[in-house]
C-alpha cells in the first residue's frame, strides 16, 4: 500500500495562514515546530511536513479503517540528503517512510510502510489543463489533487 500528497504552494498561500496564532500547535509536534522555526524556508518546511503527514495518513487510514483528524499523532523526522528529502513518520507503533520532492510551485510526498517500496513508486504529476480525463481508469495506487495539480502514484 502506498500514499501520496501534493500541495500546490500558490493555493496553500491563499488558503492557509499557518502563522495564525494557535495554528502550528494543532498540527505539529514541538519537535516539528522547532524544525519550522529554525528552517531557512519556513513556508516550504510547513508544507513538506504537512504533505508527509497527509501521505502517511492516506495509508494508515486504509490499513486501520480509522478516520480522524489527529495531525499531531503523526510525528515526522526528516533525514535530508543532497537532492532528496527523505523522512520517517511514526504513528502509534507504526513507522512509515517518505520521500519528498519540491519545486517552486509544489511540494509532493510519497509514502510507504517499507523503505524499499519507495524506489518502486512511479509518480505522474499533471498540471492543469493537462489532467487525464478519466484518471480512475488508470487505477493509481493513490491520488492527490490540490489546486492546479493532480498527482497519481503507482507502486
Amino acid at each position, binding site marked *: 500500500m502506498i500514499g501520496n500528497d501534493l500541495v500546490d504552494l500558490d493555493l*496553500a498561500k491563499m488558503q492557509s495562514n499557518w502563522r*495564525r496564532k494557535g*495554528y502550528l500547535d494543532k498540527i505539529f509536534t514541538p519537535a516539528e515546530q522547532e524544525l519550522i522555526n529554525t528552517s531557512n524556508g519556513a513556508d516550504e518546511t510547513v508544507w513538506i511536513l504537512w504533505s508527509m503527514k497527509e501521505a502517511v495518513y492516506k495509508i494508515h487510514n486504509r490499513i486501520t479503517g480509522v478516520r*480522524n*483528524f489527529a*495531525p499531531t*499523532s503523526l510525528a515526522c523526522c526528516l533525514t535530508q540528503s543532497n537532492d532528496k528529502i527523505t523522512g520517517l513518520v511514526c504513528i502509534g507503533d507504526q513507522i512509515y517512510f517518505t520521500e519528498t520532492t519540491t519545486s517552486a510551485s509544489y511540494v509532493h510526498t510519497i509514502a510507504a510502510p517499507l523503505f524499499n517500496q519507495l524506489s518502486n513508486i512511479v509518480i505522474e504529476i499533471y498540471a492543469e489543463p493537462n489532467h487525464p480525463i478519466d484518471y480512475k481508469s488508470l487505477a493509481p495506487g493513490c491520488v492527490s489533487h490540490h489546486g492546479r495539480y493532480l498527482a497519481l502514484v503507482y507502486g
Partner: protein
Amino acid sequence: MSNEEIINKLKPIITTYAPVSDALDNLNEESDFIKDLNINSANLVDIILDVEEEFGITIDNTSMEKMLTVSASIEVIKEKLSEK
C-alpha cells in the same frame, strides 16, 4: 445552547472555508467537512480555531480528532461549553 443555535453559529465559519456547493446550501448535522463539503484538510484547523474563538472554548487535540462532521463538532462544543 441548542443544536440549531450552534449550527447557526457554525454556518458562517464553515462557509468561509468551503467551496460553493449544494451540500453547503443544505448544511445539516450529517454534513461531513471533507467528504460532503470538500473542505481542504489544512483548513479544518482554521475551522477549529474559529470555533474556539466564537464559542470561547479550548479544543484539545483528543476532541479535535473527532471533528470531521457537523454533528461531532456540536457534541464537542456542547461538552466544552458545559465545562466552562
